[in-house]
C-alpha cells in the first residue's frame, strides 16, 4: 500500500516539474481590450472614424469651452454665480487670463488625440482596405481640428512626434509649433481639398460629414486666412512669421476663394438647406434638421449618447452641459398660495424642457444685446426664438398641491401661465413697480398694473436675472408628466455648423472685396453681400410660431426685414447679423478675432449687478490687449513637456 502511495506521489511530482517549466505562462493574449494593432483592420479603422465624431463631445457641449468662446465678447459676460472660470475671461478687472485659466485648454486637450486618430486612419486606412470616402471623413476632421486650433492659439505643431501629419506612436515629450501659414497650407487646405473631392453629398451616417460641410469649412478657412494675411488692425501672430503665403497668394485671392467655394455650396446644397423659420431651426423637436451640417450628437443612451448618467451630471465632457451656463435661477420666483399673499410657493420649477433647464447663472448677456443687437423684436423672429423671455408655470409637472396660484396684482395663474416676462422694451419710467412690497417675486421682478406675470424691463437685466438662452435648452423624451431630469446632461445634439453660415461667409468675402456673381438655385440672389444676407434676413422675418406667446403666429415680415437692410452691407452689419443668427452658440469670440474687431466690440458693456434687487446699470470697461487675439497655450501642455524653461517660455504665446 505504502509503496503505491509513494509511486503516485512521485508521479505528481513529475507533473509538477513539467508545469513549472511550461513557458506558456509567460505569453500574453488580451481577451477584453483592444491593442493598437487593431487599427490595421477595416473594423478598427472604421472604429477610429467613429471616435473622431465621439471626440467632438469633449469640447462642443462643454460649458467651459462655451465660456472661452463667449465671455469677454459683446454677447456675454459673467453671471452672478460665476467663478474665476468665467470672471478671468471677462477681462474687466475681476481676474486674469492665464495658461491655467483660459479654458481654451478644453479644446487643446481634446483635439490633439483626435488629430492623431485621424492621421492613423489616413495612414493605415488604404492598406486596411477602407474606401476613400471614409478616409475623406478623417481628412475633414484633421483639417477641421487644425482650423479650430489655428484660430484659437495661432500656429500649432503639425509634427506630433512621428513626423509632419503622421500618426504618432512615439512617446515624445517635446513639441515645437509651426507657423499659421504652415498650418493652413500644409494641413487645412490640402486635407479639405481631398475631403471635398471624396466626401459624399449625403452623409454616410446620420450627422456624417459631407461635401457641403467640407466646403463650408474650406470657405471659412480661406476667409479667415485672408483676414490673417491682410491683418488690417496689425494684430500680432505667433510663432512670429511674415504675413506672406507660401503658395504665393495674397489676401484678396483667398477672399475670392472663400466667396467662390461658399457660393458654389449654396448653389448645390445637396440635401441641405434653410429651415422655413428660425424657430423651426432651433426647436428641439426639429433637432438634426436639414440646416444643421455638423453636430456633436447626444442621446438618452449612457453607453452611446455621451450621457454620464440619465439623472445627474457634475458638468464635464462628454456630457452636453453648456446650456446650463446661460440660464438664471428662475426657480426662486415665488407666487402666493392665496390671493391675500399669506404664504408662497415656487411656481416655476427646474425642469428638463427647452425653456428652462439647469440654472448655473455663469454666463450673462449684457443689456446691449437686448437694446442693440436685438433692437427689432417684432419683425425679426430671432429674438423670440433665441431667448426664453417668458417663464411659464409648471405647477402641474412639479406636483404642486394647488391648480391655481396668485401672482402679480394677486391675479390667478394656472399651469402654463406666464409667471415672469422679460419685456421687449423699457416702459415709461416708474410704471413698473419693482418694490416687491406686496407681491414678492423674490427675484426683484416688477409688477405692471393689470398683469398677472411679473415683468423685468431690458434696463433691469442683471447678472442674476436675464432671459435664458432657449436655443441651448434641454429636451428629453422621458419627462412623462413630471419635471424630468434637469440635472443631467442634455440629450440634444450640439450644433456646430449650419448651412446658413455659407451666406455669411460669402457675404463677408464680398465685403472684403471678392468679385461677386449672381447665385442661382433655391437660394438665388444677386450674389452681393446684401443679396446674400437678405436671404437670411428674409427667413428671419418669417414667423410660424410665437415662442413668447406660446401660440401659432403665421406672419411674414420678410419684406420689412429686407427693407431694413442697409444699402451697403459692411463688416459691422455682418457682425451684428451674425450675432442675431448665432447668438450665444460659441461663434462670437472667433468672429471678433477673425475680423480683428474684438477690441472694438468687446468693450464697454452695460449690466446691472449681482443682487436680485439691483437695477443700477453699470458700464464696465474691458482691457483687451492685442496679444489676447490668440489664447494662451494651456499650462498643462507646458507642464507636461520636457523642455528647458526658456523653450517652454517661447512655446507660450506672448502676453501671457
Amino acid at each position, binding site marked *: 500500500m505504502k509503496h503505491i502511495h509513494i509511486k503516485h506521489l512521485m508521479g505528481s511530482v513529475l507533473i509538477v516539474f513539467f508545469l513549472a517549466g511550461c513557458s506558456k505562462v509567460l505569453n500574453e493574449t488580451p481577451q477584453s481590450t483592444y491593442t493598437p494593432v487593431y487599427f490595421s483592420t477595416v473594423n478598427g479603422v472604421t472604429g477610429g472614424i467613429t471616435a473622431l465624431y465621439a471626440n467632438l463631445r469633449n469640447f462642443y457641449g462643454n460649458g467651459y469651452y462655451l465660456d472661452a468662446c463667449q465671455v469677454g465678447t459683446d454677447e456675454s459676460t459673467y453671471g452672478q454665480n460665476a467663478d474665476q472660470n468665467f470672471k478671468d475671461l471677462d477681462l474687466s478687472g475681476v481676474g486674469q487670463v492665464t495658461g491655467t485659466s483660459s479654458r481654451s485648454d478644453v479644446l487643446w486637450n481634446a483635439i490633439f488625440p483626435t488629430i492623431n486618430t485621424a492621421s492613423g486612419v489616413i495612414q493605415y486606412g488604404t492598406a486596411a482596405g477602407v474606401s476613400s470616402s471614409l478616409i475623406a471623413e478623417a481628412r475633414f476632421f484633421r483639417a477641421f481640428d487644425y482650423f479650430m486650433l489655428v484660430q484659437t492659439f495661432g500656429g500649432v505643431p503639425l509634427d506630433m512626434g512621428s513626423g509632419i501629419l503622421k500618426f504618432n506612436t512615439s512617446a515624445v515629450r517635446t513639441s515645437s509649433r509651426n507657423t499659421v501659414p504652415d498650418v493652413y497650407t500644409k494641413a487645412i487646405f490640402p486635407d479639405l481639398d481631398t475631403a471635398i473631392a471624396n466626401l459624399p453629398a449625403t452623409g454616410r451616417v446620420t450627422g456624417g460629414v459631407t461635401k457641403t460641410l467640407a466646403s463650408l469649412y474650406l470657405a471659412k478657412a480661406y476667409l479667415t486666412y485672408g483676414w490673417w494675411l491682410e491683418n488690417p488692425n496689425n494684430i500680432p501672430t505667433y510663432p512670429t512669421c511674415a504675413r506672406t503665403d507660401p503658395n504665393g497668394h495674397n489676401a484678396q485671392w483667398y477672399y475670392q476663394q472663400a466667396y467662390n467655394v461658399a457660393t458654389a455650396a449654396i448653389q448645390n446644397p445637396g440635401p441641405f438647406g434653410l429651415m422655413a423659420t428660425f424657430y423651426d431651426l432651433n426647436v428641439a423637436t426639429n433637432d438634426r434638421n436639414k440646416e444643421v451640417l455638423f453636430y456633436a450628437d447626444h442621446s438618452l443612451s449612457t453607453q452611446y449618447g455621451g450621457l454620464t448618467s440619465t439623472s445627474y451630471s457634475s458638468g464635464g465632457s462628454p456630457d452636453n452641459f453648456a446650456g446650463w451656463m446661460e440660464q438664471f435661477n428662475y426657480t*426662486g420666483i415665488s407666487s402666493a398660495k392665496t390671493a391675500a399673499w399669506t404664504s408662497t410657493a415656487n411656481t416655476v420649477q427646474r425642469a428638463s424642457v427647452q425653456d428652462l433647464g439647469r440654472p448655473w447663472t455663469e454666463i450673462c448677456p449684457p443689456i446691449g444685446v437686448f437694446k442693440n443687437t436685438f433692437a427689432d423684436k417684432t419683425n425679426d423672429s430671432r429674438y423670440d426664438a433665441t431667448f426664453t423671455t417668458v417663464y411659464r408655470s409648471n405647477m402641474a409637472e412639479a406636483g404642486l398641491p394647488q391648480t391655481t396660484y396668485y401672482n402679480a396684482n394677486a391675479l390667478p395663474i394656472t399651469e402654463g401661465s406666464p409667471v415672469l416676462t422679460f419685456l421687449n422694451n423699457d416702459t415709461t419710467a416708474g410704471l413698473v413697480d419693482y418694490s416687491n412690497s406686496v407681491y414678492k417675486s423674490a427675484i426683484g421682478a416688477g409688477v405692471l398694473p393689470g398683469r398677472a406675470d411679473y415683468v423685468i424691463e431690458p434696463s433691469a437685466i442683471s447678472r442674476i436675472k436675464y432671459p435664458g438662452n432657449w436655443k441651448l435648452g434641454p429636451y428629453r423624451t422621458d419627462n412623462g408628466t413630471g419635471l424630468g431630469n434637469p440635472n443631467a446632461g442634455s440629450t440634444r445634439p450640439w450644433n456646430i455648423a449650419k448651412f446658413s453660415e455659407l451666406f455669411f461667409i460669402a457675404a463677408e468675402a464680398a465685403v472684403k472685396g471678392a468679385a461677386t456673381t449672381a447665385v442661382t438655385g433655391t437660394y438665388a440672389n444677386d450674389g452681393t453681400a446684401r443679396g446674400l444676407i437678405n436671404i437670411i434676413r428674409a427667413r428671419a422675418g418669417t414667423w410660424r410660431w410665437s415662442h413668447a406667446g406660446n401660440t401659432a403666429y403665421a406672419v411674414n415680415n420678410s419684406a420689412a426685414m429686407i427693407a431694413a437692410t442697409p444699402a451697403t452691407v459692411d463688416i459691422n452689419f455682418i457682425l451684428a447679423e451674425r450675432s442675431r443668427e448665432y447668438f450665444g452658440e460659441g461663434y462670437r469670440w472667433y468672429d471678433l478675432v477673425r475680423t480683428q474687431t474684438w477690441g472694438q466690440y468687446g468693450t464697454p458693456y452695460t449690466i446691472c449687478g449681482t443682487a436680485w434687487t439691483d437695477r443700477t446699470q453699470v458700464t464696465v470697461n474691458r482691457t483687451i490687449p492685442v496679444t489676447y487675439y490668440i489664447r494662451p497655450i494651456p499650462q498643462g501642455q507646458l507642464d507636461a513637456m520636457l523642455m528647458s524653461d526658456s523653450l517652454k517660455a517661447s512655446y507660450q504665446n506672448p502676453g501671457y
Partner: protein
Amino acid sequence: MFMLISKFPKRVSPKILIKALFAFVLIFCFNTLLVAQKNVQIKGTVKDETGKPIPGASVRVKGTTSGVTCTDLGTFTISVPANQKLVVSATGYTAKEIVVAADAKTANVTLTQFVTELGSVVVIGYGTQRKEAVTGSVATISGDKLNEIPSANISQALQGRVAGVEISQTDSRPGSTMQIRIRGTRSLNASNDALVVLDGIPFPGSIGDIDPGEIKSIDILKDASATAIYGSRGANGVILVTTNKGRQGAKPHITYNGYYGIKNAIKYPMMNGADFWKLRQTANLYRTSPGADEDTTGKTNTDWQDLLYQTGYVTSNDLSVTGGTEKGSYQIGGSYYKDQAVIPGQYYTRYSLHSAIDQEIGKFVRIGFTTNNSYGITNGATLNAGTALSTTPISNPYNADGSLKRTVKMTMDENWVYTKQSLNALGNQFVDLTRAFNSYNNIYGELKVPGVPGLKYRANIGLNYRQSNYGGYTGYGFNSSSATTISSATISNSNTTNWAIENLLTYEKTIAGKHKISATALASSEQTAYWYSTINATGIQNDAFQFYNMGAVTDPNGQITVNPNNQSAWKRGLVSYMGRVMYSYNDRYMISAAVRSDAASVLAPGHQWHNYPAVSAGWNIAKESFMQNVKAIDNLKVRIGYGETSNQSVNPYQTLGTLTPVGYNFGTTNTTGYNVSLLPNPSLGWEYSKTWNYGVDFSILKNRLSGTIEYYSQKTNDVLQSVSLPATAGVGSVLQNIGNTQNKGFELALNGTILENKNGWTWDAGINVYSNHNKLLSLASGATQDVNNWWFVGHPIDAIYDYQKIGLWQTTDKDYQYLQTYEPGGNAGMIKVKYTGTYNSNGSPTRAIGAADRQILDMQPKFEGGFNTRVTYKGFDLSIVGAFKSGGTLISTLYGATGYYNMESGRRENVKIDYWTPTNTNAKYPNPAGIINSNNPKYGTTLGYFDASYLKIRTISLGYNFNPKWMKAAGADRMRVYITAQNPLVLFSPYHKESGQDPETNSYGTQNQAVTNYPYRMLVVGSNTPSTKNFIIGCNLTF
C-alpha cells in the same frame, strides 16, 4: 486519495479540489481512533530545571492520544501499557520521552525551558530559521499579541506594531482593509503593496479574507537580503502569515474567542443653523427663497448628521478545535464577524472556515494541507456622509404634519433627505451588495530522501479561488432631487483563479558539531487569471426584482448597458528558480546567500527575465569568549545584508498598448469607436531595487530589555512609470522604465519588562520608532519634474504641488496697495499665497500671482511609530496600544476646496470655521464675500493642509483571567474576559485640535470629494463614513 492529488496538476478543477478536501478531513478525523492495551499505573511529578512544579504539563502515551494533564502541583497519575514510552510536554518547554519499566510505579520528570525568544523559530520564506541565526531584517509578531486588539483584519491588527511597517487607513467603511507600506513607497505606477504569503503560498486574494483569529504568527521580511528569495515580488517587503495548526500528539482543545462592541460616530465638525445663517449673510451670494425648504429667518437648526447616524456594532465569534495524533495533527476552526456601520444599511459580514492537517506516512513521507475559506458580505458601500454634510442646517426635513420630506430645496441644490429614517424606509428600493466567496488552499507533500540524511524534497501546490459578486439597485428617485429619476440596477462578477506550484529541495547538515549548512533550491511557477463582467440596467419598475432580473426593463426609457470599457479579463504568470545557502559556524558567524531568477508575463518579450542576488551575514558577538564576562549583555548580534528585488506589479498587456472604446450615436444608430489611450512599449522591463541593511539585535539585563536597531538604504531603478504625455503627442500616456527612487530609513524597536512579578505585578512595555525618507532621484529623460503627476526630483513621491498659503490679505499689509497687481479682482481677507516673482523698483510685483508660484510641499512625516504596554496583577491585565507620527501633511478635503464643504458661500452646509470679516481680521479662513474660484475661495485647496502629527491611543483593554482552579472545576483550561475601548483618545494632533476629528486619513486622493485634485495614491480625509469610538466586551475561552 493520493490518486486525487496526483491528478490536480493536470486539471485544476475546483470541484475535484473541494471533494478532495472533504476526503482529507474525514479520513484524518478517523485516524484519531485508538486501540486499548494492558496497563500499569504510574504516578509522578513534572518539574522545571529549578525544581518548580509545572502545572498543566501534558503526559501522554507515545503513539496514542491517551494522556493526562498535571495538577497545579505538577503531579499526575496515568495508566500505561508496559514498556511504552511516555511523552511529557508543556508550553515553553522542550518535550521529553521516558521509558516506563514494567515494574515502575513512579516517574519524576524534569523539563528544560526553551531559551527565551532567541531560541524561537522564525519563518523566513521557503523555510524557517532559529531567531538567533537570522541575518536579514525580519520582524515577528505572534497571533496572541496580534489578537490582544480586537480587529477586523490583519492590516488593522498590525497598525503601529512593527517598526518600518506603515499602515494607513484608506477607508472607514466596514470591511475595509488598510494600506500596508513596508519601508516606504518606491514605485510610481507599479504596486507598492507588500507581498502576502499565506502558509507558504503567495496570496492572491484580499487581506480582509483572512480571519485574524486564525493567525499563529506574522513574520515580516523587510530588507532585500530577506525578501530577495521572493525575487520579483519582494521589493515591497513580504508578510508571511502562518495560520494555526494542531500539535502532534496534543490532546484536543477547543478555543472560543468572541467579542461584541458598540460604535459611536465621531461627527464631522459642521456649522449649526445660526453659524450657517451668519455665513450666508456674510457671503451675500445666496439668499433663501421663500417656498424653499430653508428657513428664511435662519432659526431652523437641523443636525443632519444626528439624523443620519445610528449606533453601530461589531461582533466576532471564533471557534476552533486543535489536536494531534501520533504522527499527525489537525486544526479546524470557524468564525463569524460582523461590523455594522453608523450609517444604516452599511455593514460587513464574514464567515470563515479554516482547517490544517498534517500527517506523516512511514519514515520518509509527510503530507498535509491548509485551507482558508471565507464568505464576505458587504452592503451599502455607496452610502456615505456626503449628503448629510452638504445639506444646510437651516433646511427643514419635516413637513407640517411631522412626516419626512422626500427632498429639501436649498438655494441652488435640492438634496434627498438623507437620514436613517429615510434609509430604513427604503425596503426593496435600495440594495448595494457585494458577496465574495474565496478559498485559499495549500497542499504539500514532503519526502525525506532515503539514504541521504538531511535531504528533503517538498512540493507545495497552491490552489486558490476568489469570486466577488456585486448587485446594486436604486429605485425611482433614490438620492435624487427628482422623484422620477429612473431606477438603476447593476450586477458585476469578478473571478480570480490562481495556481502556484513550488518544488523545493532542502539539505541540512551539521559538520563537526560547529558547521551548520542549510541549502534550498526552488523551481516554481504560478498563474493568476481574472475575469470581470458588468451590466447596468435602468428602468426596472418592480422594486422587488432589484438586480435579480436585469432583463426586466419595463420603463420605455430604460436601457441595458454593457459598457465595453467595463469588462475585463487578464492572465499573468511567473516562472522562477531560486537557490539559497545558509552557513553558520559555531552559532557565531552566519552567512546566507541566495539567488533567484524570475520571468513575468506582463513584461515585454526579451525583457522578461531578471536575476536577484542576495547576501547577508551576522555575528553573534555575545557568544565570543571575550564577552563571557560581560554579564549585563545577554545577546548582541550585528547584521549586514545586501539584496536585489524587483517589481512587476503592472497590469497585464501594458506592453501592447491600448485602444479605449468610446460609444457614439449617429442619430439613433449606436456604434462604438476606439481611441488610442496607451502607446505600446515593446521594451518594458523590470523595475528593480537594491537594498543595504544594517542591524543590531541586543538583549540586556537578563533579557529584561531587548531591542533591534536597523538602518537601511534602498535604491529603486528603472521605475515603471506611466508617463503622461503632453496633449500634442495625441496619446495620453505610455508606461516606461524610467526614473529612480530612494528610501533611507532608521528603525528602532525596544521591548522591556519593567516589573517582573514584583508583588504580583508585571509590567511590560514596547515601543517602535521609525523614519523613512523617500526621494525621487530622477525622472524620465533627465526631467527634474513631472508637474502633471506631481513628481519632483529631490522630493518624496508623495508631494503636493500647490500654492502656499502665507496668511490672509489684510488692509494693513505693506503690500496691500499692490493687491490688484498680485491678484486682479482680489479683496481684503482673501488667501494670501507666496509670490516668487520679481519686483519693480517701487516694490510692486512685476506680475500677477500665477502658475509659476506653485510650491512643492512635502507630505512625508519625520518619524512615526507605535507603543504598547501591558500591566498584569493577579488575574488582571491592562494593555494599551498607541501610535504616533511627527510631521508630514494631512490633506483634509473637508476644509480644502475639493470636498465642497468649505465653500464659504452659504450655498451648502459648511464646515465650522473661523472666517475673516472686516471686524474679525485675525481669522484663519478667508473672507466669504471674497474672490471665488471653482465655487470655492480662491486658493481654497490650501485650507485643507494640516500638520499630520498625532499621538493617539488606539485601544485600551482591561482583562481578567479566571483562576485556573475554578476553570478546572468548570472543565475549562483558561478563560479571560475583557473590555476594550477603541479609538478612545487623541492626545496630540493639530487637526484633532481644530476639528475634533480622528487624525487618520479615510479615503484615497480621488474619493469622497466633489471634485478631484489629488492623485489617487495620496490619502486624504473625505466625507466617508465617519470614524467611530468603540466599546467592546469580549471573552477568550479554552477547554
